[in-house]
C-alpha cells in the first residue's frame, strides 16, 4: 500500500511536474521527496497527511528550510 504512494509521486514527477514548472522548493528535501520519505516511513494514510501538510506549509509566507519527514511532529 505504501508503495502505491511512492509510485504516485513518481508518476507525478514524470508527468505533471514538467507542465507545472515546479523546479525548486523552498524546503529541503523537496515536497515530492518529502512525500516519498513520508510514505516509506509512515505508510499510506499518515504519509498522505504529512505530504499534504507539507504542501500547505510550502507557501509564500513560510520560511522554508531543512525539514525531513522523519523529524515530523504531527504523529508521535
Amino acid at each position, binding site marked *: 500500500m505504501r508503495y502505491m504512494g511512492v509510485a504516485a509521486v513518481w508518476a507525478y514527477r514524470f508527468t505533471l511536474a514538467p507542465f507545472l514548472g515546479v523546479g525548486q522548493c523552498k524546503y529541503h528535501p523537496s515536497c515530492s521527496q518529502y512525500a516519498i520519505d513520508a510514505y516509506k516511513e509512515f505508510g499510506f494514510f499518515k504519509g498522505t497527511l504529512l505530504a499534504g501538510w507539507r504542501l500547505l506549509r510550502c507557501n509564500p509566507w513560510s520560511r*522554508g528550510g531543512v525539514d525531513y519527514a522523519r523529524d515530523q511532529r504531527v504523529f508521535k
Partner: protein
Amino acid sequence: MIVASPLQPLEDLLRHVLNALHSVGLPWAWSIVGLTIIVRMLLVPLTVKQIHSMQNMQAHAPQMKEIQRKYKGDRTKLNEELMKFYKENNINPAASCLPLLAQLPVFIGLFYTLRHFAKNPPGGQAAIDRGDFSWLHFVPDITKHANSHWSGYVLLTIYVLSQVASTYFMSGTMQKSQRYLMMILPIAFIPFILRFPTGLVLYWMTTNLWTVGQGLITRRLIPKVAPPGGPSPSGPKRSSRTPPKEPPPPDAVEPAAEVPAPKQSNAQPRRVKRKKKARR
C-alpha cells in the same frame, strides 16, 4: 470520472468565467487567453515577493557560490547547507510548491471544460460552422484535438518553445541534470499533447509566455550588484529586509553607557520586540 467529480465545482466556476468573458464579446479562444491572464494576474503579488527575494539572493551570491563549490560532490549536503545559509541570512526562497500546484486544478478544470465543449458545443454545430471556436483566423476549432489541423502544430511548437523558455527562467538554482530533464520532458510529451484540445494548448502557451515575460521583466529589475569573488559588503545585506535593525543600537547603547544597569536590561527586550514586529 473519479478525477472529474471533485473538480466539478471548479469546472463550473471556470465555465462561468469563460461564459462571462464570452458574453462580454470575446470569442471563446480569446476568453481562454483572458482567463489565463486573470489567473496569472492573481499570482502577481507572489511575483513581487519573488523579485524581493531574488534581489536578496543576488546580494549574497558570492557566499552562495562558495557553499556550492565547497559541497560540489554531495548534492544533498549542498541543499541542506544552502537552506541553512538562507535561514541565517534571512533569505526567503521565492519558489514554493503551493502556488504552482494551484494551477493544476485550473489546468484539469479547463481540460474537462473543453472536452465538454467538444462534445456539446454551446450553440451546436451552427456555432462551429460560424467559426465561434476559431482563433486568429488560422485555428478553425479550439475544441478539436491539436493534431486535427496544421494550426495545432504551430501552437504546439510555440508551446514547446515557451515551455522550455519558461523552465529556463523558473529553474534558478535547479541542478543542471534536473533542468535538462524538465526541458526535454515537454518534447517527449508531444504525442500526448497532440490529443489535447487545442484550447488547452492555447492556455498553456499563454501561461508560459506570461512566465517568460515576467522573467524578462524580473531580470531587468534585479541589478547585478554582487561583486565577483570578494566577500559581499554588509550594506546590501541589511538594507533589504531588516532596516530597523541598524538605527536602534546607537540609541539604545549610548544612554545605557551613562545610566545604571537595570535600565540597560529594560532596553534590550524592547529591541527584541521591535525586531519581531519588523519581520512580520
